[in-house]
């Protein structure tokens, strides 16, 4: 069992858990992820590491309530325990020297944050591009502001409720145009990553994407998380989750991400009706 030490609520649907896991905390790196199974009948869900502390022996992950598992997790409180947490999995994020743009869209900001922090700690100049549908869904603004001054933070919302109205490609384009950055990291919904990639490609700037396909085992054994990169099949769990974004087949990723939409709906319904096996 893995004890939840702290629960933070960022908005109506966005939470952070700090979980006791000393061995994982000692070996965690930016860009890696955890596999979490909340209880005996739960599924295994990957969550990117949002923070960790080796001395205090904890790891953190952020989640947004979108389906049964996250709905159920949101009811857990500090002091409760998760049945299983495995990690850190995947290859850590590495970027060459030079100024970077780090783009996070929606809940992807939870992944972008530790990457930005890591890059700053390793001597990079970082511009954070933070995108969300609306103001309430913009994650971790305070944390980003602790890391970066205003000139290095670029916020967009689809509805214009905060920051500039529009999508992340607008500030990205400006940064690329002015040659303020020489490389880009992006994480978020597929369309956001796809269009960020097209924008970076236009300027010939290298771009890395952190991919988030469905996973089952997370250790390379099952092949559920396979993605097509440069015409080859790769496993996000052991070959990634970071890949050269210009080589990713986005349609393939999107189709595989959507493969269980119907079942996800059924699962949530069963939870809400109380007919699933796991009422903790």
């Amino acid at each position, binding site marked *: 069992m893995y004890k939840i030490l702290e629960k933070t609520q960022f908005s109506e649907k966005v939470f952070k858990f700090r979980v006791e896991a000393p*061995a*994982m905390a000692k*070996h965690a790196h930016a860009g890696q992820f955890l596999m979490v*199974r909340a209880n005996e*009948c*739960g*599924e*295994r869900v990957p969550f990117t590491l949002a923070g960790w502390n080796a001395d205090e022996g904890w790891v953190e992950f952020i989640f947004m309530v979108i389906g*049964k*598992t996250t709905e159920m997790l949101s009811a857990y409180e500090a002091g409760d325990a998760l*049945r*299983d*947490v*495995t*990690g*850190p*999995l995947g290859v850590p994020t590495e970027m060459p020297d030079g100024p970077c743009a780090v783009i996070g869209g929606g809940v992807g900001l939870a992944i972008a944050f530790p990457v930005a922090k890591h890059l700053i700690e390793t001597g990079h100049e970082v511009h954070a591009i933070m995108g969300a549908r609306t103001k309430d869904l913009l994650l971790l603004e305070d944390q980003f502001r602790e890391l970066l001054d205003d000139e290095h933070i670029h916020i967009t919302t689809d509805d214009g409720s905060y920051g500039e109205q529009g999508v992340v490609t607008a500030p990205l384009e400006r940064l690329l145009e002015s040659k303020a950055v020489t490389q880009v990291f992006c994480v978020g919904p597929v369309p956001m990553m796809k269009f960020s990639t097209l924008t970076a490609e236009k300027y010939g700037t290298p771009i890395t994407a952190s991919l988030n396909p469905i996973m*089952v*085992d997370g*250790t*390379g*054994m*099952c*092949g*559920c998380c*396979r*993605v*097509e990169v440069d015409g080859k*099949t790769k*496993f996000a769990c*052991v070959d990634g989750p970071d890949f050269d974004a210009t080589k990713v087949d986005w349609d*393939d990723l999107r*189709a*595989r991400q*959507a*493969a*269980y939409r119907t*079942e*996800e709906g*059924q*699962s949530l*319904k*069963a939870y809400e009706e109380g*007919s*699933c*096996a*796991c009422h903790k």
Partner: protein
Amino acid sequence: MPQVNGRFVPDMKSPRTPDNEEPAAERACDFRPVDKGFTEEMALAEAERCMDCKKPFCVEGCPVNINIPKFIEQIREKNYGGALDTIREESMLPAICGRVCPQENQCEGKCIRGKKSEPVAIGQLERFVGDQPELASKPAMKPKNGKKVAVVGSGPSGITCAGELARNGFDVTVFEAFFTGGGVLVYGIPEFRLPKAVVKREIDGLEEMGVKFEYNSVVGNIATAEELFDEGFDALYIATGAGLPKFLNVPGENLPNVFFANEYLTRVNLMKANKFPEYDTPTKHGKNVVVFGGGNVAMDAVRTAKRLGAERAIIAYRRTEDEMPARRAELHHAKAEGVEVMPLVSPLEFIAGEDGTVCAVKVQKMELGEPDESGRRRPVPIEGAIEEIPCDVAISAIGTNANPFASKIGGKMELNKWGYIIADEETGQTTDPRIWAGGDIVTGAATVILAMGAGKKAAASITKSLLGE
């Protein structure tokens, strides 16, 4: 038992006792065990058929050389506990091996009775006693020797090695990536062939012997070999399994509802997707399911598909039934359950339907040509003979590659060019003298019993190396 001048006379007339199977039509609807195992009466009758050969070829055929005539004799004497003790001298997992070993190629394949009639049902007899663990003597435990060994992976190889080491007085910790023990025995082999309770019993037995299990622990990521040595472990046994699925390398392989067998099986076996939405992990219940491959994993996948409600479940294989590496019993069970065998086809392309998921697979028809290096006739394409099979779930079960995790564990051990760990065939020792390895991560995908045998050899070598015995 019939005796002439005090010597046992085998029953040479009775045919082999048939397996005690659930009716095919009923069992294909759920995940109940297909084979109920011998009753005492059946076991006693079958034990009478053993000729108690002076030179028992069955023992040679067994990868771990169990004294088969002896344990069968003990069955005849109704000394089931003794029979189990005899098996356990060589094999830690009789209830599992009795169920999943390819006996027809091993002990039973060498049985003299098989020459003129049918071999003795050694596997069933092993299982019969294996399922009565309460009758066995408590394993003799050597006093604690103060040495610590880490075992990476709790599949058949890892748990065998752990058990042997514990008996030899070592302090053993098994690190397992999943949340439960058993490796391929729990995520790969379905309930209807190997009930999870049987595996759990073995794991519980190891815990009683003092073996510690650390679940959710991916060695390599959570601790490297060097860190484990720094923590006080004196040796390491790596048995992580073969790992990565092998690709068919045809277009459309990544379409939704095209699975690798490991995923398809893990969803159901480990995550209980057959009980969705009671359990959270879903799977796809295809009406028309095509499985590519001809081994036991392919059989497990296609029979699982049948149980998930497939109307048409097909095994598509590029050679013919005769060349299939699967156990005959599995093929026979699959066919009895209504699985269709489509020989001499090779996949060309998976085709997406309107909803973007797989709706058909295009296959190339083959014929058998000249024998290849394996001695089997090589399948060659028949020009222009291309067919489209409708399917809403397709599964690739053509084998595995080495998992790159082995290289992350560190230490000074070397891998071969395919990523498998190089280990001495006799001892399991790697090129790092503190690390041993065995099972599929050394040999590539093989059988439970070979993995077990490797665990046993490594345990003996570790004991010798650490204790200087």
